[in-house]
């Protein structure tokens, strides 16, 4: 107590001294520990996008920082924000509460909102830079080039087409992915110093052996071949491969598609072909051998195709194609039904006896799947009709492969994922690190992609992070959340869409993006709600100017309130032994 006498102090004791001398923290039997975990969305994202962090930055209105955060893990936010099948939203914990966060739309928003911004990149300073050849400049090869460059290596990209981009450039139509978006994202990758050699086809332009001059190879040739139907009459000039049609269209060539077309297949390529044909004025029928629910295409693609007037026939399979005298083609289909064969649990499409149907059209597009061309590759790199993800050639030279050429889902984001993974694996290899020691700590959950941020932190500090777990829904405290409607992306009306190849989805406006971002639970990531600070009964939680949380453990009694009131399970109580 202070020497100054105050009359009231005769009736009530007041101390002006500090109680800090009482180290009440010694009483505690548990202590709060910061526990950054992975959110389920980022585990689900094959590319390992830093979803909660970037969404938090959007909510704060820091769109440029949001872009930079994503670019650390994925060079294609503008592209993925448009074409990704967003498995992240399937796993979003908010789905258990009301509706998932609009992760895909928000990723696109980070690109759309920062068109005038070119972040500066600095590659990791590597004394021992290596030279790597990448074959194929699709999303996979480009991603590998990007991450290798960020890690300080020198990359030469060989692309057989005249421009890089692969499926993004030649496959996906403009109304889903404007070429301007792709151009900007590819430029950003190439600006890191990647040597781009277009019009170079390995095995044709130069022999494969010429790649011996590189320290490692990455093979990402994509699946450029179209699987054939295997039916009579398929060789007709009126039967086009869907992927060829898309390539022509994306080359800016004028195409006379014909008045009535049949598209055979049910994947994204089939939908791209069908919807593009509608835009060229065709009447379109999609024929698919299974049911609508089993279509591999994105559900929204099917909805939009229907809105645009695409018709569907399910459970039919072509058996014969004939040209008619009037310059048309007639396709005979076998009707199918779903059933099990020999009492097995697996349901198959089985022919309906005597059931067939014939459709006539000006043209038929086939889109039943793509194939990889291995003819140019040494046989030792092939296994079970896929390129091996990892092999060695020429005195133990590292050869990695990714994208559609290896056995993995043929999705853009999976292609990005395998390119990124290969870049990190090569860097680990060049540095002579033990892969097993590093991967568990930089992998997002059990099935997730690799975290470049974690890898770079490890490189800088020499300390490899412990594996972090994905926060389960049960560990969140949803009492702090209120139901909030998921905003819908504005979509061009069907009649407008059919006028050309204008982008269908219009993207979020800033306010919509911030509202959507505010719905994120930020599972496992502190987003500065300050609940721990406000609720701590002892006032021992502090936030430093750099944003880090500090707990004065000398005075923390271990009550656990901070952990209980953390909505996102960022604080866990650990017993003091």
């Amino acid at each position: 107590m202070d020497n100054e006498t105050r009359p009231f102090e005769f009736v009530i004791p007041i101390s002006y001294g500090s109680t800090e001398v009482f180290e009440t923290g010694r009483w505690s039997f548990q202590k709060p520990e910061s526990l950054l975990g992975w959110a389920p969305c980022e585990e689900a994202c094959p590319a390992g996008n830093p979803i909660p962090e970037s969404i938090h930055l959007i909510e704060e209105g820091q769109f440029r920082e949001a872009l930079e955060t994503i670019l650390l893990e994925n060079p294609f936010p503008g592209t993925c924000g448009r074409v990704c099948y967003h498995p992240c939203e399937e796993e979003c914990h908010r789905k258990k509460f009301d509706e998932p966060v609009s992760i895909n739309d928000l990723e696109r928003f980070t690109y759309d909102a920062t068109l005038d911004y070119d972040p500066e990149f600095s590659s990791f300073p590597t004394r021992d830079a290596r030279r790597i050849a990448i074959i194929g400049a699709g999303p996979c090869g480009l991603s590998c080039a990007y991450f290798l460059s960020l890690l300080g290596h020198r990359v030469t990209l060989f692309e057989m087409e005249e421009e890089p981009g692969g499926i993004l450039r030649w496959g996906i139509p403009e109304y889903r992915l404007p070429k301007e978006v792709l151009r900007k994202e590819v430029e950003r990758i190439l600006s890191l110093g990647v040597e781009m050699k277009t019009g170079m086809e390995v095995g044709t332009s130069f022999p494969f052996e010429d790649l011996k001059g590189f320290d490692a190879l990455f093979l990402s040739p994509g699946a450029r071949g179209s699987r054939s139907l295997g039916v009579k009459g398929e060789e007709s000039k009126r039967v086009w491969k869907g992927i060829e049609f898309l390539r022509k269209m994306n080359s800016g060539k004028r195409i006379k598609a014909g008045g009535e077309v049949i598209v055979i297949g049910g994947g994204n390529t089939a939908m791209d072909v069908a919807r593009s044909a509608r835009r060229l004025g065709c009447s379109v029928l999609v024929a698919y051998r299974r049911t609508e629910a089993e279509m591999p295409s994105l559900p929204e693609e099917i909805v939009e195709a229907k809105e645009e007037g695409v018709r569907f026939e399910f459970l039919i399979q072509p058996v014969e194609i004939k040209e008619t005298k009037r310059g048309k083609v007639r396709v005979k289909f076998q009707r199918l039904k779903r059933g099990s064969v020999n009492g097995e649990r697996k349901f198959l499409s089985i022919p309906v006896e005597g059931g067939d149907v014939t459709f006539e059209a000006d043209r038929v597009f086939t889109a039943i799947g793509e194939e990889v061309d291995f003819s140019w590759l040494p046989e030792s790199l092939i296994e079970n009709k896929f390129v091996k993800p990892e092999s060695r050639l020429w005195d133990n030279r590292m050869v990695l492969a990714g994208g559609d050429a290896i056995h993995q889902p043929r999705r853009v984001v999976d292609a990005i994922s395998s390119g990124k993974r290969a870049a990190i694996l090569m860097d680990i290899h060049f540095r002579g690190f033990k892969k097993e020691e590093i991967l568990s700590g930089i992998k997002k959950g059990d099935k997730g992609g690799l975290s470049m941020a974690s890898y770079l932190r490890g490189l800088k500090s020499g300390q490899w992070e412990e594996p972090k777990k994905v926060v389960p829904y049960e560990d969140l405290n949803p009492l702090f959340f209120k139901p909030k409607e998921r905003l819908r992306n504005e979509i061009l009306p069907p009649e407008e869409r059919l006028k050309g190849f204008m982008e269908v989805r219009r993207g979020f406006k800033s306010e919509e993006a911030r509202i959507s971002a505010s719905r994120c639970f930020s599972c496992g990531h502190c987003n500065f709600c300050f609940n721990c600070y406000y609720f701590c009964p002892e006032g021992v939680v502090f936030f430093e100017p750099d944003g880090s949380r500090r707990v004065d453990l000398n005075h923390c009694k271990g009550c656990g309130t901070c952990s209980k009131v953390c909505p996102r399970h960022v604080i866990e109580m650990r017993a003091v032994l």
Partner: protein
Amino acid sequence: MKSFITGNHAVAYGVKLCRTPLIAAYPITPQTAIYEKLSEWEASGELKGIMMRTESEHSAMASCIAASLTGVRTFTATSSQGLALMHEMLHFASGCRVPVVMVNVNRLLAAPWGFWADQLDSLSQRDTGWIQLYCENGQEALDSVIQAYRVAEEVFLPAMISLEAFFVSHAMEPVDIPEQDEVDRFLPPLNLPHRFDVERPGFFVPVVPSELYRDYRHLAQQSMESVKEVAQRVDEAFKKQFGRGYGLGEAVMTEDAELVIVTAGSITSTSRVAVKILREKGYRVGLLKIRYFRPFPREWVQQKLRGKKKIAVIDRNFSLGSGGIFGQELKAALVHSQDHPLIFNYIAGIGGVDVTPETIQDMVLDALKRREPVEESIWIKEG
């Protein structure tokens, strides 16, 4: 202006007139109507203060204490179990010397469960260091709220005003609601000599050595003793301004009385009727109403009962293993008076049982017949 309102609403009017900026409470029957009325006014903007809806009575009292230490007038209302839950904080309030004003609607304590009038809830808190007042009706409750702030704020001790469940809390009576400017004139804004000050951080309730603790207790007792003088002065000022006064208590026809009935709370009103009837029948009976229970107005009681032969203390409460609590207090107050009266302690109205004028007449006739002291309390079981 007179309004026909319940005791609970009379309390709410009293609080509003005192411009109490912070009310922290938790609803409990039969007090809830106070809480509701204040909430209504808060919603309509008539009440300028903040209504804190706390998660328990314990927190309500903690909030009042903390708010009071920032220098604002505070109020809470509770009853029975709620008051029991507050117990720990009641000691803190008096120890921190905060002039919190609380209304407690007397309700029996469980178990068994019930909602009916019984004074044991507040009397169980008699040693917590609070000023305690017992009110006869809604008008007195309203006036006591206003008076209590002035008394509490002069001596820096909290004050608890009790009125009985339903008999007062829910019964409607004509109540004169004073004008706001009159109350403003009577009750100046609170001005604590010391309060929480962010410019000069300090903390209340530090650990103190034994001697200091003893000294603070003694200082508090001196302040509590001074209440008897302060309360009378405040009551006189009130009477002068509003035309109504209650004193530390009230003596009715005691001058020539052979027997004086001693009551607190609503049974006083019933006793007034009983005294009138008995007087008409020729019995010389008087009535002493106890209003202030803490501090207990010992000297006043001694003076009013000097020379009386018998008193009949009616208790709507019972302390197991001892007796009616007002009975005990009367015995303690009179033990050193010369030729003190024979004290008969009647237990009536426990658990909300109705006490009629006839019940009281029977008690008086019983007491008049007795020649010897009775150590035990006498339980009235009629009705």
